């Protein structure tokens, strides 16, 4: 079933004419004729969970915004920087009006009169497409003052970032949008109460907002019939790494993960087996090949000890050394840590140093314990989850591949000429 990717490769879909020919902006007309509460009801009934990573119910989040006449904001999080994620890029690049329509409906439901799309600076070519789409929508009266003759007004600005993974975190994104360094804020207060410019703010991922027109078109209850009970709807899955056909696929939530990895993406290349896979971007704990038979939805991934996250699967083949993957991962989070909280700033740095020591042949198996301990001390001790995002997958790698880590330590020690580590009597440890 295709919703988000319907007609995705039709030439000219990025333009407003072709989009409208396929029924575009009909949902907006339908929504604007309803009351704000009715739209919220539809969103709640759909059970749509946020597609950015946390999986929070979108309708619920929108209904948290206070009523009243103050300035309210809607911010679309298009700072897609998670390694392995590229679904938002394709959604915006090929069908920008779908997102614009979703934003207008979402803002109407939340009572917001100013909206921003925060897009990462690297996506300049996508931002250009969005700029054109916004101008077209303004021209056609879908944005601006008194949209389609209603009481609702909305201005939409495409804001380009300048390259920082941390800005995908909602409060860091707000700081960056206010023209500051992208440091996360303490929560609470949550953005729904005090967000952008201290005003109530609804923040949603691109895919979440792009789904909204389809919910209004089908009706919330009808949409909820797609997928599973706890994970409704379709999801665009980005799959990459050691597979034959990497790319974006729209799937119904709840289909077996094997169908995505081995069916749609064609499985690992000739002569290679799957060693492990990240089910939700580089921040999710790795799973093993046996987990491929689980249904791909929010609950099953959580039960298996990982998470669906942004729905970005990275497949790691068995020819790859797990230490190399761990080092790449840790290096990334060290680079992107904003430095505000000590456990994350120091934890990511020391993890990299320990992994490099393993690679150089200077580590002992005890370093694995220390490294696992560092991960434990990062989790839950920072303002945002960037540190956790390294700690969780790294912890899972040490758990699942301890033998390989130990073998790597021994082999590297032999190669560096240090030989076997001195055995410490257990009483001393």
């Amino acid at each position, binding site marked *: 079933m295709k919703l988000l*990717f319907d007609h995705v490769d039709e030439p000219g879909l990025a333009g407003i004419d072709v989009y409208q020919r396929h029924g575009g902006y009909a949902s907006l007309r339908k929504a604007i004729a309803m009351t704000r509460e009715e739209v919220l009801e539809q969103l709640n009934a759909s059970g749509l969970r946020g597609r950015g990573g946390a999986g929070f119910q979108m309708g619920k989040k929108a209904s948290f915004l206070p009523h009243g006449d103050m300035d309210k904001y809607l911010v679309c999080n298009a700072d897609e920087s998670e390694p392995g994620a*590229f679904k938002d890029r394709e959604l915006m690049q*090929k069908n920008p009006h779908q997102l614009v329509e979703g934003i207008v409906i979402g803002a109407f439901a939340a009572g917001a009169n100013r909206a921003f799309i925060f897009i990462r600076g690297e996506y300049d070519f996508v931002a250009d497409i969005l700029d054109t789409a916004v101008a077209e929508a303004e021209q056609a009266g879908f944005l601006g003052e008194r949209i389609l003759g209603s009481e609702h007004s909305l201005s939409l600005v495409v804001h380009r970032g300048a390259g920082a993974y941390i800005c995908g975190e909602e409060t860091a994104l707000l700081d960056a949008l206010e023209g*500051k360094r992208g440091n996360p804020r303490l929560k609470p207060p949550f953005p729904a109460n005090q967000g952008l*410019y201290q005003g109530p703010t609804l923040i949603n991922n691109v895919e979440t907002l792009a789904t909204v027109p389809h919910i209004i078109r089908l009706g919330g209850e009808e949409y909820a019939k797609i997928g599973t009970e706890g994970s409704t709807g379709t999801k665009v899955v980005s799959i*990459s790494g050691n597979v034959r056909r990497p790319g974006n696929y729209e799937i119904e939530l709840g289909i077996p993960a094997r169908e995505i990895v081995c069916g749609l*993406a064609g499985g690992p290349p000739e002569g290679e087996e799957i060693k492990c896979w990240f089910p939700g971007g580089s921040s999710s704990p790795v799973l093993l090949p046996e987990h491929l038979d689980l249904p791909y939805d929010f609950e099953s991934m959580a039960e298996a000890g990982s998470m669906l996250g942004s729905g970005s699967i990275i497949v790691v083949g068995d020819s790859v050394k797990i230490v190399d993957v761990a080092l790449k991962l840790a290096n990334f989070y060290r680079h992107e840590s904003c430095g505000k909280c000590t456990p994350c700033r120091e934890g990511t740095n020391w993890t990299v140093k320990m992994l490099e020591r393993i690679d150089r042949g200077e580590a002992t198996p005890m370093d694995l314990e220390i490294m696992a301990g560092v991960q434990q001390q990062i989790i839950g001790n920072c303002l945002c989850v960037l540190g956790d995002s390294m700690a969780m997958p790294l912890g899972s790698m040490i758990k699942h591949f301890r033998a390989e880590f130990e073998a790597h330590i021994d082999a590297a020690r032999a190669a560096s000429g240090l030989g076997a580590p001195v055995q410490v009597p257990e009483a001393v440890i």
Partner: protein
Amino acid sequence: MTAVKRFAHGSRIPGWDEAVDLSKDPARVPDPATTPVPAGLRATIEAAMGRYPDRRSAAIPALRAAQAEHGWCSPEAIDQVACVMGLTPGYLAAIATFYDMLETTPVGRTDVYVCTNISCSLRGADALFDAVRNAAGDDPEFNIRAFECLGACDIAPMASVNGVYVGPLEPEDAPQLIDDVRNGRPVLEAKQLTRRRAADTVQAEGEDR
């Protein structure tokens, strides 16, 4: 071990050994009378400031515009932005050092970002990065960087050349990439991302790529 770049005084921070002049006042908002700003840059920044309820929100777009004008966020560029926006140079320098795409040292005009994150490195990004660096040699025109995930793992390993995404690349494509930039041609036209169809469509049609 990855060598850490250090200055002669042993620290990684420039100016570490220079004492702070406590008798000097902190830098203020530059005086418009003594800070000439190119008209085009001023117009861009003022337009950006007008788009937000708070002008400060335009800091990142303004710095990017100044970087496009000057090649990097030089002290002069930062002064000009500070002057138009009514902010201190220190505030803007803090922002320029935070974001990856804002350069705080002089660099080449052509940005070549090679993604070396997990998905790309699983498909040979490190070899590609070396090949691109070798192909460019020490040409000062290029600013070649190993970049974090650029959000195009479907065309891994890939690179962004002044914002144009190309991939999947082989190390053998590197000389052509550099050559195209030097001769002002579209970079590796056949491999540009915008020419690709969604994997979903291709798969549904039963094609193999």
